């Protein structure tokens, strides 16, 4: 993808912006699905999780990129995971020391960043092939895209479950909270409906370009699922 771009600045902006929307890890690629579902009951923990992932993603991308010439094919995955585990430990200790309440809410989901597919996927797909600058930008873009997805999802869930957003009351007094939104059901259904909404929005944009006169056949919903597995 990025390598086909000629100029250096184009390469950098491509690496930075791909993750934010076009290859958004949560909404478009559907990888690393456990934090978007688990920690999005409110915006604050979601934001903390997003920032932690950005930190780990940038650091691990940088380190993997620097040692990309030393990687042995059969030991690759374990070298990635050990690198990631190191930075996750740093991040976990930092949260425990400076944000103890957030650390308690996120609990085991902070160490679970280690097995978040996004980070290994980026190490494999980008950092083990590209230079350090592109890898850092790629990590930043992917991380921001992930954080954005977490914030959108958690804002909807927090609003409907408590009537607050970021702990600030926004709904009128008469609003009856939907407790179901805080439960696992709320996570799955909200994410499903948001993906459906994105399907509708992107279809409006792509259909007229591809087949202006064709019969109303259903291929429009297809571009959604390139890399689910």
């Amino acid at each position, binding site marked *: 993808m990025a390598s086909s771009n000629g100029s250096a600045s184009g390469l950098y902006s491509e690496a930075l912006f791909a993750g934010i929307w076009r290859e958004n890890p949560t909404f478009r690629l*559907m*990888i*690393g*699905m*456990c934090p978007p*579902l*688990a920690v999005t009951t409110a915006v604050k923990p979601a934001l903390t999780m997003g920032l932690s992932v950005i930190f780990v993603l940038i650091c691990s991308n940088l380190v993997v990129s620097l040692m990309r010439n030393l990687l042995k094919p059969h030991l690759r*995955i*374990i070298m990635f*995971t*050990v690198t990631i*585990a*190191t930075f*996750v*430990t740093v991040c*976990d*200790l930092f949260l425990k020391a400076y944000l103890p309440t957030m650390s308690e809410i996120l*609990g*085991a989901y902070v*160490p*679970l960043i*280690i*097995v*978040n*597919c996004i980070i*290994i996927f980026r190490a494999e797909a980008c950092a083990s092939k590209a230079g350090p600058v592109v890898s850092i930008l790629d990590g930043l873009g992917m991380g921001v895209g992930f954080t954005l997805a977490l914030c959108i999802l958690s804002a909807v869930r927090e609003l409907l479950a408590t009537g607050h957003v970021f702990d600030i009351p926004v709904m009128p007094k008469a609003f009856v909270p939907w407790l179901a939104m805080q*439960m*696992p*059901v*709320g*996570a*799955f*259904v909200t*994410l*499903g*409906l948001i*993906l*459906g*909404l994105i*399907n*509708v929005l992107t*279809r409006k944009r792509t259909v007229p370009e591809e087949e202006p006169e064709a019969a109303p056949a*259903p291929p*429009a*919903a297809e571009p*959604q*699922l390139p890399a*689910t*597995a």
Partner: protein
Amino acid sequence: MDRFMTLLMGFLSVVLVNNFVFTKFLGTCPYLGVSGRIDRALGMGLAVTFVTALSGTLTWMVDAWVLTPLHLEITRYICYIVIIAGAVQLVEMYVRRFFPSLYEAFGIFLPLISTNCVILGICLFLDVWGTDNLLEAVVVSTGTGIGFTVAICIMAAIREELALADVPEALQGAPITLITAGLLTLAFMGFAGMIK
């Protein structure tokens, strides 16, 4: 007898009440990605059960007998991930050597498993739940794997039917899968409160 009941309750609790997929969202990636066909889902589930049981037990032993006495808790995550990756590698080699037909069936899933959140999840939650003896650790980690298998097989069975259903165009593919998953968790919430 009392001991046996505790173990049985612990087992049922991780299979039904605290099912990792439905209540903790762990292993959602394969749950949504590999649940298209029921035979592949079963293969994935069995492979995960096997590795979960093995690495849950191993990490519990290392944690309780090595890391805690030596006050090396800070290296816990790195140790866990190395043990899991090692266990996966070992299982892969062993199965390939001695059960070639099983290896054919597991084949592609085994390498994927080392980054499955269920496995690191059970290693971490054994610590969170304060599991304090080896037998309990073995039973709970096996139960977690079985819970995952149950979840992914139910999902695959529903999705095989869903392929024939008339789904609104905007919801085709991933969205309807997620909504189905949501309804399934709602069904499994019926078990909540059955065991404390």
